[in-house]
Structure formats: structure tokens, C-alpha cells
């Protein structure tokens, strides 16, 4: 993952933004939630789908009428909130990670190809990228939800179908700069083909950017899923997903505050952690990415 040392690049890098303290807290939070997601069946005290109308809107254990049977309270159908949050970690994190992996893979590929070949290929790919970028994510997700019904898959598709364009643009920009460097010309002269150059020389030098982008985008996807749930196009009930849990509890902000608050807290912690992690990665790996 090393950047091939080139005198020009180094001189431009700001001296100040290197070596920062490891973001222990952010890493810790991400690690904890990933573990929670993986170990959900072992950790959750109850079945997240088990509904009991008599127990609806019970408060957390420290309030009167609360009980250890549902430590964080119950939602509008009497389901245990803690269990739903634990299982929700799976759903929300999976949504974020899967979407981002798909869009980054595809987007990077497009960016690499466009930047390498240039000319008409570049122009065509970039026009498609631009067209994609200008389509609002939320509207596409809504249209998809209304056409084929909301589902986990549709949320991933709707977001990935537009998110790749961001990667494509950024990676292409990087590749364009890289292509002006001598070592690419040298590789060409040495007889290297397109595939070799792209995978051996270009891709490794864009990995830093990719890592930063990926980390930053996971949080973004989780937040978008929450907004989609609010509009009725997110991951549908009864699947526990943090975004839809917050949306379900939004009319009870004062009366049954825990229904939205705890999933909201979970999202806040996870997304904040990913964002701060991404910031640190950017500052450490490639400070030139200040516009991301």
C-alpha cells in the first residue's frame, strides 16, 4: 500500500498532518458493535420478533413499570428494545458495509478504466457518472420502494446504484494525476498491458483513498437508510433495523422516548465512530483528500 515516492508529491504534502494518535475510542466503538452484530443470538435476551400487545411501550428498567425482562423498554408492539437493537446492529451494519463494498468496487473499476484509457472512454464513462451523480439517492430509493416494495435488497441496490459514481469520480481524478507521472510511462515502454498497469500500478496507489472513502461512507449509508425508513422506503418491519426503529418511535418523542432514543444512540455512536475513524485515516494516509 505504499505510495511510490515521487519528489513532487512529497513536497506538496503539508508537514503538519502526519502521525496522529490512534483513535482508540472510535476503533473501540466500531469493534464493539461489530462484535455485537456477530454475536447477536448469544447476547440478545429475547426474540426481537416476539410481540405482545399487552406489553407495548413499557419503559426501561430504571423507571417504574420497567422490568429486567425488557431492560431498555418495549416498542409499540411490545417487543424487547434491547434485543431489537442488538439484532439491529446486524441489519444496519450489513446494510452499510454491503452497500459500500459494492459501490466502491464498481466505482473504483469505472474510475480506473476511465482514468487509464482517457479519451472517448473517459468522456462516456464520466457522462454516465455525472448523470448518475445528479440523481437524488432518496428519490431513487422511493421509486424503487414504490415499484417493487421496500426491502433490505432494494435499499442496498438503490443506494449502491448511485453511490458508485462518487468513487468513480474521485478515483478517476487520482488516476489522472498518477498517469502524468513518469513511472506509468516507463511501465508502458516496458511493455506492460492495460490490466497490469491498472492492477499493479494504479490500483495500489488509490487504495488509500478507497479506504478513507469506504470508512466515511458506511456511516452515510446507515443515515440514509434511516431517512428512507422515515419516508416508508427503508428496511421494512418487522425486521429490526435502527433506522426504521427510530422512524417508528418518532411520534412518541416525549411519551415513549426510549423507542427512538436508544436506536438513535446506537446510530449516533456507530456513525460518529466511523466518521472519526475515516477522518483519522484520511489525515494519516492521504491528507490531500480534504474535499471528501
Amino acid at each position, binding site marked *: 500500500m505504499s505510495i511510490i515516492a515521487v519528489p513532487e508529491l512529497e513536497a506538496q504534502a503539508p508537514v503538519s498532518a502526519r502521525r496522529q494518535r490512534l483513535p482508540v475510542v472510535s476503533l473501540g466503538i466500531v469493534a464493539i458493535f461489530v462484535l455485537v452484530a456477530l454475536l447477536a443470538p448469544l447476547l440478545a435476551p429475547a426474540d426481537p420478533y416476539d*410481540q405482545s*400487545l*399487552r406489553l*407495548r411501550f413499557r419503559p426501561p428498567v430504571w423507571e417504574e413499570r420497567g422490568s429486567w425482562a425488557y431492560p431498555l423498554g418495549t416498542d*409499540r*408492539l*411490545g417487543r424487547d428494545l434491547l434485543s431489537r437493537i442488538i439484532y439491529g446492529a446486524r441489519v444496519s451494519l450489513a446494510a452499510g458495509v454491503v452497500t459500500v463494498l459494492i459501490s466502491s468496487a464498481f466505482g473504483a473499476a469505472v474510475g480506473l478504466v476511465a482514468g487509464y484509457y482517457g479519451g472517448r472512454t473517459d468522456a462516456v464513462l464520466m457522462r454516465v457518472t455525472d448523470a448518475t451523480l445528479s440523481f437524488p439517492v432518496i428519490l431513487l430509493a422511493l421509486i424503487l*420502494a*414504490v415499484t417493487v*416494495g*421496500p*426491502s433490505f435488497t432494494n435499499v442496498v441496490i438503490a443506494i449502491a446504484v448511485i453511490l458508485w459514481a462518487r468513487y468513480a469520480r474521485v478515483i478517476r481524478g487520482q488516476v489522472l494525476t498518477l498517469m502524468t507521472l513518469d513511472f506509468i510511462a516507463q511501465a508502458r515502454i516496458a511493455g506492460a498491458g492495460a490490466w497490469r498497469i491498472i492492477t499493479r500500478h494504479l490500483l495500489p496507489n488509490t487504495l488509500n483513498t478507497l479506504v478513507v472513502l469506504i470508512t466515511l461512507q458506511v456511516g452515510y449509508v446507515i443515515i440514509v437508510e434511516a431517512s428512507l425508513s422515515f419516508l*416508508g422506503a427503508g428496511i*421494512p*418491519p*418487522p425486521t429490526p433495523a435502527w433506522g426504521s426503529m427510530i422512524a417508528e418511535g*418518532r*411520534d*412518541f*418523542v*416525549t*411519551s415513549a422516548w426510549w423507542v427512538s432514543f436508544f436506536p438513535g444512540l446506537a446510530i449516533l455512536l456507530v456513525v460518529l465512530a466511523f466518521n472519526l475513524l475515516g477522518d483519522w485515516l484520511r489525515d494519516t494516509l492521504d491528507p490531500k483528500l480534504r474535499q471528501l
Partner: protein
Amino acid sequence: MNTTSRIIWLSLLVLVVTASPVAAQGKSDLTIALSSFSAETVDPALQGHNVKYYLSLMFDYLVGVTPDGQPSQQGGLANRWENSADHKRWTFHLRKGVKFHDGTDMTSDDVKFSLQRAMSKRSTTGYAGPLRTLIADIETPAPDRVVIVTKDPTLIIPTYLSRSLSTEGMVLPKKYIEANGDDVFARKPIGTGPYKFVEQVVGSHIKMTAVDSHWRIGVPKYKNVTFKLVPEETTRIALLRRGEVDVADVSRERVKELEKDGFPVHMRKEEAIIHAWWILGPEGRTPPTNDKRVREALNLAIDRNEVAQSIFGGYAEPAAIPMGLSWSFKEVGFKLTPDMAYAYDPARAKKLLADAGLSGGFSLDVYAFQLPGFAEGKAFAEAIAGYWEKIGVKSKLIPVDYPAFRKMWVDRKAPGAVGYYNIANRDWIGTYALLEKQGYTPSKLNDTVNDPEIDGMIAQVMRQTDRDKINALMRNIFTRLRSEHHGLPVVYVHSPYAASKTLGKWNPGSVMYDLFLDELARK
């Protein structure tokens, strides 16, 4: 302090000054916040779904009604009407001296024009179809008399042209529309109602202003009336708290909170029935719901009391009759007896399933969607799916929105799947009209019943003019709907409308899709 801080303080000051809550709308304005405007057109002929909240302030009806839905000679443009002996000629005597908002007089020509327009191809009103098949001719023997001639003897004409159903009875200005065209009318409508249209921003609000004096209301108390579309409940309530709106529809969950804070909450009791049904296949019911025992079992598995108490916050009553619109029961003499209620009996439900050969259970698709005025839609679907799971019926929730569900219903591509609606309660004629749409095989795609006996009874009501015979038929229809379990009537819901503390007395009435807001304007 530096410039930045100065700027911040200054801006805060400006905000505080401009943000003081609008002092109680000066009694001269009335503002209503609603969660949905439905079709949102101000042309009555384009209202496919009968919403009259704002239309009934701008337009008057041929036949008026009292707030509890009875035809009234004081409430409409016709102060008197009579029928011929054979019930084929209906004569309406019009009030004199009523003027449209542009100053022209309202005459029988306008009534004829409006009715023809409501029945035209362009119209999408709810009862245009039946009126088209029923009305043979409209005569205008004098400027203050209209005679409606029907092809068959019927009792329904005054009600169909009244405020209790839809908008076909609204009287529109013939000269204005003919001179300016439908498009202009749809943008700048005029009528004879107590309020004149001022402006509409689709998706945001509708503003109107009072006429000087109205034949029914007198001098309107409120100078301006504004309807605001505010989809988010928290915002509607915040607007109410701030005094920016005087009336807001609220969900049942928040009634207690508002009452505790001193806001009067007006309940429209049994405003709708939450009624679910099984989608038919192309030829009718499909297994397993073609077996009466299965339908009964699915009904018995639902704990209606618990649903009423928990999902609807106690503002609901268990329902027993499929498509049983209770506002019609008294009129037709239908008595609801305790044995008609569906008990909560999962044990018996399981036994019925076993009798039907389904002791291993079966799969059922349940569509889950939200509807205007029924925010609990998805929770409701999840709840009944949960009850069915407990008797061994694997219920799969399919999230959609209403148009997608309607497509499945009408296309009949998902036979046996469960859907629901909050059917607005109404009088017997409205109920009959609903049955003719949803319980009548010849109505084809919209049918949810497919029962030849019921078809026969409905066809008879259509042509009957003897009230006793009609009542008997309606009673029998209800009885059979119940005995054959032709649906899943779950609860009647009460709908809360919160008002500002200074609003005063208000009876929202029990007329479908109307809130009688014009009555508030009466001094």
C-alpha cells in the same frame, strides 16, 4: 468582543424578535392543519375520493344535511323537494337570491350544468357512475326549479346529491365555467359557499376568505380560513401549541397528552371501520379462504379488545359485521346482538382449522401499508399477523404503499392475500353504495365477497322504493355477511381532532369526510 461574536448575537436578537408566536390568529382567522388533503383538487368533479373538508366551505350542495347526516331543508340550495308517485321524477325547489362569488345568480341552469358535469367523462367523483346509469334527464322548468328524471324508480337521488356522500351535489357556476374553461376553474374556482377561494399551493395550503354575508351562515365569524397540509404529527401538534393553528387532526396515541395540557379534543365517534379482507382470485375465493371455517378461524384468532386498547389507545370499539358501517344500523333497524361479536378464541380457531383439514397451518400474505387517517396501518398489520402466527398460520408481511396494494386487489394477482382499509362510516345509502362496489360480483374487480345470495339482495335494493323492504334487505345483507364471515371487521375507530383552547364549541359531525368547519364560522 470580536466581529464573529457580534454577528452571532445580533442574529440571535433578530430571530428572537421575529419569532414571537403569532398572537392567537386574532379571532378573525381560522387555520386548520391536516395530515392529508387526499386528491387536493379544488374542482369538485375531480375528487375521486370524496374529501370535502375545504370544498364544503366554498361550494353549497343542492341538498343539505345536519351534522349527523340527516337531509336538511335548511342546509342546501334546495329548500324543498318532492318526488312523483312513481319515484321517477324528483323536483327540487331552489332558494332565491343566492349568488355566486362573482355576483351572478344561482339558477336551475347551474344545477343542471353542475350535475351533468359531475356525470361527464372527465369527472372522477365516487358516485358519477351510478348517477350516470340512473339519471335519464334533467329538466329546468323554471329558474328556481329542477326536475331530475330517472330511468328506474329510486329513493337515492336526494342523498346522492347531498352533503352526506360525495361532491356530485355541489352547485357550480355554469356561465363562469363555460366562459373560462375547466382549467381556469380548477385554478380559480368560484361557488356559492360562505368562503371564496383565494389561493392554493399544491402540497402546502389552501386559503380562502369570507363573503360579506351568506344565506346559511350569515356574516362569517372568521375573515380568513386556511387549510395547511402538515404530514408530520409532531409538527401539527407543535403548531397547535404555538397557537398557529386552531384545529389539527391528531393520532389516538397523543390524545391523553393533549387533554392533559388543556387542549379540547373532539372525537368523531366510530368515524371509520378498520376492515380487512381477502383478495379474490379471478373466479372468486381460492383455497383455503374459500372454506367458511377458515374465514371464521382467522376472525376468532384476533383479540379485538386488545387491539382496540393497545394499538388504538382505547379509542376504538370491536367490530362484528364485515363492512358493517354502524352509522347505518339504526336507519335500517339492524340490531347488533352480543352473540354477533367475534370472541377471542384461538383454541376454537385452531379446531376450526383442523376441521378444515389444515391442522398443519398454512401461509398467508398480509399487505402492510399506511393510509391517510390511519397512521397505525403498519402496526395493525403486524399485530394481526402476530395473532395468526399464534394459531399456526404463517403470515408473511408484505410492505407496500396503498396504490401498489390496490393494484394487487384489482388485478386479482394475489388471491387470498389480506389487505385492509379504514372505511369511512356513513348512512344507509352510502353503505349501500359501498356494498355495491365492494360486495357485489358484477362490480367485478372491486368485489371482495363473491356471494350470489348477497348479489341478489343488493340488486333488489337498487330498484326498491319501499323503505321497509329496503331495510329488511339491508338487515339480511348484514346478517349474511356476518354468518358467512365475508371479511375481517376488526374495530371501529374514533378519530380525534384537537382544537385550540379558544376555539369554542364545535361539532365535527358524523358525515363522511366532512368536518362541518363552516359551522364554526356561524356567529
